[in-house]
């Protein structure tokens, strides 16, 4: 960041923009809470997430022993919820990281080599963007069966094309700018130019894209798990819980409502943070 833009943001901060809007503060609080839960799920959980309590099946929420009630096997819904949050976030973070790295790398390669490499990358992004991801994911799951690493890897294919497009476009324009030319003249290797000079300059746009992809990964994973094709029991994820809770919708809707609310609030929180970051970091992406 140059001195001029630093001064500019400092001035704006002093005069007009309040530091953080309430909605964003709430969203950040929620996400931090989710991260803490994900990190310590098994320590916080009052029961083991597979622990049965057959005498207390389908207990209503609000009782002392089980705050969020129990499911059809007497398993504590709160404990399951906490562990589900861990699995769902693990998948979402893992997948988002993979797609950001893969997409950005391919975008840089396209920007660096141009020509045939660029055409190939563009063709792949077109292909990815033109196929509904759910269908491709289902096809891969059908062919390969299911496991957690495969699921994370598969989800990591989601959204890479957006990073690739953005990284390519921004890297091409950055290459034309003085600073990239200057370090190149000084003899920097391409990887140094891209990683040390161009990447920090375009990072804000990529971070904003991450906040768009992340909630979609959560929704996609929970959708697959809901269909019974994502995370497999005895492991549990948010979508999984909704899927099983659906069987007991009439009598015990809380089994399904607790994870469903978590999914909705989490995606909402990330979107709110993303919108805010976009306004702060990247006015061109409105």
């Amino acid at each position: 960041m140059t001195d001029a833009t630093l001064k500019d943001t400092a001035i704006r901060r002093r005069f007009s923009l309040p530091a953080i809007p309430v909605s964003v503060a709430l969203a950040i609080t929620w996400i931090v809470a989710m991260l803490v839960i994900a990190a310590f799920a098994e320590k916080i959980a009052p029961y083991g997430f597979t622990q049965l309590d057959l005498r207390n099946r389908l207990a209503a929420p609000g009782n002392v022993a089980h705050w969020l009630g129990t499911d059809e096997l007497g398993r504590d819904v709160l404990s399951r919820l906490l562990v589900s949050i861990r699995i769902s976030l693990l998948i979402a973070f893992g997948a988002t990281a993979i797609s950001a790295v893969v997409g950005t790398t391919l975008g840089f390669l396209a920007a660096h080599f141009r020509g045939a490499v660029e055409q190939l990358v563009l063709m792949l992004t077109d292909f990815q963007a033109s196929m509904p991801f759910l269908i491709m994911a289902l096809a891969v799951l059908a062919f390969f069966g299911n496991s957690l690493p495969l699921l994370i890897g598969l989800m990591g294919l989601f959204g890479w094309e957006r990073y690739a497009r953005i990284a390519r476009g921004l890297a091409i324009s950055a290459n034309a700018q003085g600073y990239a030319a200057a370090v190149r003249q000084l003899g920097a290797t391409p990887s140094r130019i891209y990683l040390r000079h161009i990447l920090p300059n375009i990072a804000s746009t990529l971070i904003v894209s991450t906040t768009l992809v992340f909630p979609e990964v959560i929704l996609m994973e929970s959708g697959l798990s809901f269909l019974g094709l994502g995370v497999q029991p005895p492991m549990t994820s948010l979508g999984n819980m909704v899927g099983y809770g659906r069987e007991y919708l009439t009598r015990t809707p809380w089994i399904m409502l607790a994870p469903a609310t978590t999914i909705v609030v989490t995606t909402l929180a990330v979107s709110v943070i993303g919108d805010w970051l976009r306004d702060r970091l990247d006015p061109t992406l409105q």
Partner: protein
Amino acid sequence: MGRYVAIRIGRAALTIVLVVTFAFVVLRLSGDPALMILGPEAPPEVIAAFRKAWGLDDPIWLQYLDYFRAIAQGELGRSMRDGRPAIQLVLERIPATLALTLPAFFFKVALGVPAGIYAALHRGSGIDRAVMMTAVAGFTVPSFVLALLLVLVFAVQLGWLPSGGQDSWRHAILPIVTLSLGGAAVLARFTRSAMLEVLGQPYIRTASAKGVPWRKVVTSHALPNAAIPTVTILGFMVGTLIAGAVVVESVFAWPGVGRLLVVAVANRDLAVVQCILLLVAMTMVTSNLIVDFLYGFLDPRLRAKGAHA
């Protein structure tokens, strides 16, 4: 124009080639295709015949070409479950899916596009905020949650509508509402931002400045330009008509292509999965192609650019 059309058709063909390649690679990577397609209980002579028919003992590049030839001839394998041709199983389910996705498509457009345009024209108003909030909700509430909430309210609590099955038109209401609401929210948000971007352009200011009435500025300057990105997303939505109801069909036990796909994936009925994959690819490519041609119609600049690309 001829060159533009040729380039687009070339690209569409290339996408199909990529999808078929994807299916081929995934199929080969996942194990012996003979066992995968025919199932582990197939008698050895059938497997041998299959290997011969599909040329599985040939070199891999020849297999790749053969795979293309087979698909071009509509040989998509048989369902593991009842031995019927996969393509037939899939085609049978299409009308049921369209019975949901076509009305839903209509409602999405009828609700989402006007709401987005209105919100953009009255930016910052109460209605704008309401539209945006609904749009955000439409994005963050996954369709299976929305579907279950609708079931909970209208089927379980109020008892007005059935919660699943396909016995009468009343069974279609909740699935269609689920699909429409989510799609309309996405479309409203998209149309709004497309419209806002156009309204910020200098030519809109020019038109206003030279005294064109606002209504006319909107109808003849803003709307046609905002139509371009909106048509893109509509094209994508048309492409999902065949299999866009995977989740909703599963929730409502609606016997369409989406549910067939989920069951086929769960049973690893590969011929059916492969068939649906290719069918979806065809629809997506066709609708993208139509969108590309519509661009040429809506925006002469793109046509010119396409000619030089």
